[in-house]
């Protein structure tokens, strides 16, 4: 009977595990939402949280809803139309198989689009130009150029080339570039004051130390609330290290409204619109927000940090920790409710240790009444009620049963969509 129950329970747990893993295939974004001086601390902790989650097999990514770069109208003026005209002509030339013409026109368009992006304009022409150049170079047998352009396009936007314009061969080439193990290069980062650094719109972290990333062309952005952004195109060369720094100037640019709202929602009983917005903006299923308490400064030795994890419009996890500068990974572990790996210092050796008489045995009958023969030695078995996990499981069981009974009775009617 007991074996039967065990087998049944194992099957149930397996089914549940499969179901849970099937549902957790989506993206999890970790957002550092520290205000002012605590931003750097929350970035470091959020980065460690994202790395920890990634190491557990989740699709976790560090993200920050930075405000859009203010468009430099002077720099943009007229260039968007020029670029679009060049791109259109390049596309027509591609259709007519005039590849030298495509190359000239698409390169001109690319240059204009790079200027536009650097000036804060939003455009899809940059990637379209790169796809044209990659396809043209592929047709002309220039493997190095085609790889460079397709890789640059992939780094900026991971969507494949338009299937209406490009043949399956180009799509295959895109897949090859996408799946090939990337060659990496290093950037040595610095900024004054310490700022966030984004590569192609994705938050990397604070601009300090070294960043080893996939080689290719990046639009880098240095940003700190209250300061003007600095944008710069940087090509990361394989196996090379190059410095990348910026000095930001104060301009009282506001912090993204969403970040302030996220901080407020962390205090509320349920996630609100800012969390939902993050779900949509980052294409995520789950959002983890890391905040720092008042006075949590990067220079301080210890400061409080908090984590809240939203899934399907509910907070599903909360964690608090005292962060020690330089030990972000430990803080992340505490916030996620995991055990921290600590280095245990061995106690001083007792020069005269007490000697415990050890009795050897072959069977239980060789030992005392309350003893069992284990590994050839007589040992008193530890009662199951004395184990740490027993009462944990009891607690979880009681909580589970209570939740299973109470939640369906008290919770709001869940939305139901009928597909007709």
């Amino acid at each position, binding site marked *: 009977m007991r074996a039967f129950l065990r087998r049944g329970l194992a099957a149930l747990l397996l089914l549940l595990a499969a179901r849970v893993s099937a549902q957790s295939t989506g993206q999890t974004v970790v957002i550092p939402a520290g205000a002012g001086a605590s931003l750097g601390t929350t970035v470091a902790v959020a980065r460690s949280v994202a790395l920890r989650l990634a190491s557990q097999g989740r699709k976790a990514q560090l993200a920050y809803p930075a405000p859009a770069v203010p468009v430099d109208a002077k720099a943009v003026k007229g260039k968007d139309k020029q670029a679009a005209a060049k791109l259109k002509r390049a596309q027509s030339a591609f259709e007519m198989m005039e590849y030298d013409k495509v190359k000239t026109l698409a390169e001109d368009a690319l240059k204009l689009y790079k200027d536009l992006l650097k000036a804060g304009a939003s455009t899809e022409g940059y990637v379209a130009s790169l796809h044209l150049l990659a396809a043209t170079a592929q047709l002309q047998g220039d493997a190095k150029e085609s790889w460079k352009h397709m890789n640059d396009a992939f780094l900026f936007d991971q969507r494949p080339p338009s299937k209406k314009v490009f*043949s399956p061969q180009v799509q295959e080439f895109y897949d090859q570039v996408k799946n090939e193990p990337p060659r990496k290069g290093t950037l040595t980062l610095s900024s004054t004051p310490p700022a966030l650094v984004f590569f192609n719109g994705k938050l990397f972290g604070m601009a300090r130390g070294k960043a080893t990333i996939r080689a290719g062309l990046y639009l880098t952005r240095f940003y700190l609330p209250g300061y003007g952004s600095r944008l710069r195109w940087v090509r990361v060369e394989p196996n090379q290290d190059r410095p990348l720094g910026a000095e930001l100037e104060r301009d009282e640019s506001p912090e993204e409204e969403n970040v302030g709202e996220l901080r407020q929602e962390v205090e509320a009983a349920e996630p609100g619109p800012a969390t939902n917005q993050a779900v949509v903006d980052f294409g995520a299923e789950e959002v983890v927000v890391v905040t720092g308490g008042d006075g949590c400064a990067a220079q301080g030795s210890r400061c409080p940090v908090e984590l809240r994890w939203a899934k399907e419009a509910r907070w599903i996890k909360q964690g608090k920790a005292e962060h020690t500068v330089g030990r972000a990974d430990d803080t992340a572990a505490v916030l996620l409710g995991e055990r921290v790996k600590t280095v245990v210092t061995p106690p001083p050796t007792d020069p005269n240790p007490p000697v415990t008489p050890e009795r050897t045995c072959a069977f239980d009958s060789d030992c005392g009444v309350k003893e069992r023969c284990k590994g050839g030695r007589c040992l008193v078995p530890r009662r199951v009620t004395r184990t740490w996990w027993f009462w944990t499981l009891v607690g979880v069981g009681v909580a589970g049963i209570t939740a299973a009974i109470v939640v369906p009775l008290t919770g709001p009617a869940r939305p139901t969509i009928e597909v007709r």
Partner: protein
Amino acid sequence: MRLLARLGLALLLTSAGCDKSLEVTGATQRVVGQTVTFALTQGEPTFEGKAWLRAADGVTYREPEIKAKKTDDRTLSFVIPPDVAVGAAEVLAWAGGGVYKVPIELNRLALTIDDKGVAEGWPLPPGGLAKPSRSLGAGPSFCAVTPGGGELVVAAGGKLLILDPGGELKDAAAGIILPGVIALAAVPGGVLAGSESALSLIRFVKGGATTQAGSLTITGLRGVAASEAGDRAFVLSSCDTNSDSQADSDCVHEVSIGASLGLGRRAVLDGVPSAKTISATRDGRGAVVGDSETIHGAWFEPEPATPRLSKVAWVVKQGGADVPFTADPTSIDRAATVVKSSPTEVRNVDLFAVAEKAKNAITFVAFNPVAQNDLQKTSESILPEAPLAVGYGRRTELVVAAGKSLYTLDAGQSNPAAKKLGAQTGGNIQAFAVQP
């Protein structure tokens, strides 16, 4: 006690694993071209009207592409677009500042009518839809699918029927009496039906009436093909070029489609009236005809230019040399996407697949008249049995009907190998179409 603890943990995991925020009921297996309606039968928040479809390949189709429409706060509908990847998809429906994520399964059907008069829809892999089926009565039949994939037009037993492929092949619009049909070409919201002596334009409204909007007299009609937009068509006929009342050539007639039909220029292909199959380019500026000695290309440049002709001869290898042979082409179709024209070149060309019975072969030809490189044979695949009809599904996915079986090939590959599908019809297939 331990057992209790384990059961408690199991219950906790159960509650954690459940999607408590949304329950989805109803028909989640859908097909291309079908209108899907979401009804929020319980709970809040209500729909905002914005909806996206994220297909199995990760491509996201936004509101205009899926024609998303909010009927009221609790009802939202959209259309499954052509060219979508089949398999597990997700619909994002905006509601109250958040998003409902509704999982659905998309299917693309290959539609067959066998000689016993049974129409069936075969979901192409990896579709999981239960096969729809309907008996139409024995006799000759023809079928075509509209460019959006939402309607299957069938000519059988002297009637023209408009069926809903996603609705178990039930009537999608009223049928009409139309005897003598020997060729069909579907256009958005209508169909061109050809008989031995006339071409008719039939318009229908989904869930409503079907009417004849126009007709042209074309003697010796053999085939008809239309452009993707449904604004132009070509008719293949056995024509009389020396006014002796005897058909002496194959001709392609240019037809404009509007409120009615307009007959334009005529291209005379050769001096033997033998061709039976025709297909049009996506833009409706040219046509490719499968004939017994050659494959013809006809390019109708803007008027007043005369149509430009090109051709590729049917050949077979004998002792290392190409020797002409008499082919028996049975069907021709055009891919809905841009494809390569040779292993080393990529061009914006139309790729046609010609089914040929004498060699059991599918021959792929590229047609690129804009580049003055009109017709070029690109590759060939041999089947284990004689192909009857071909139809392109998504992009370069070609489905071939042969005997009682269906085969798939990737026309984007060079000399692609045919894979047999599990589908097996009760009788020999005589009409065939594939959803785009």
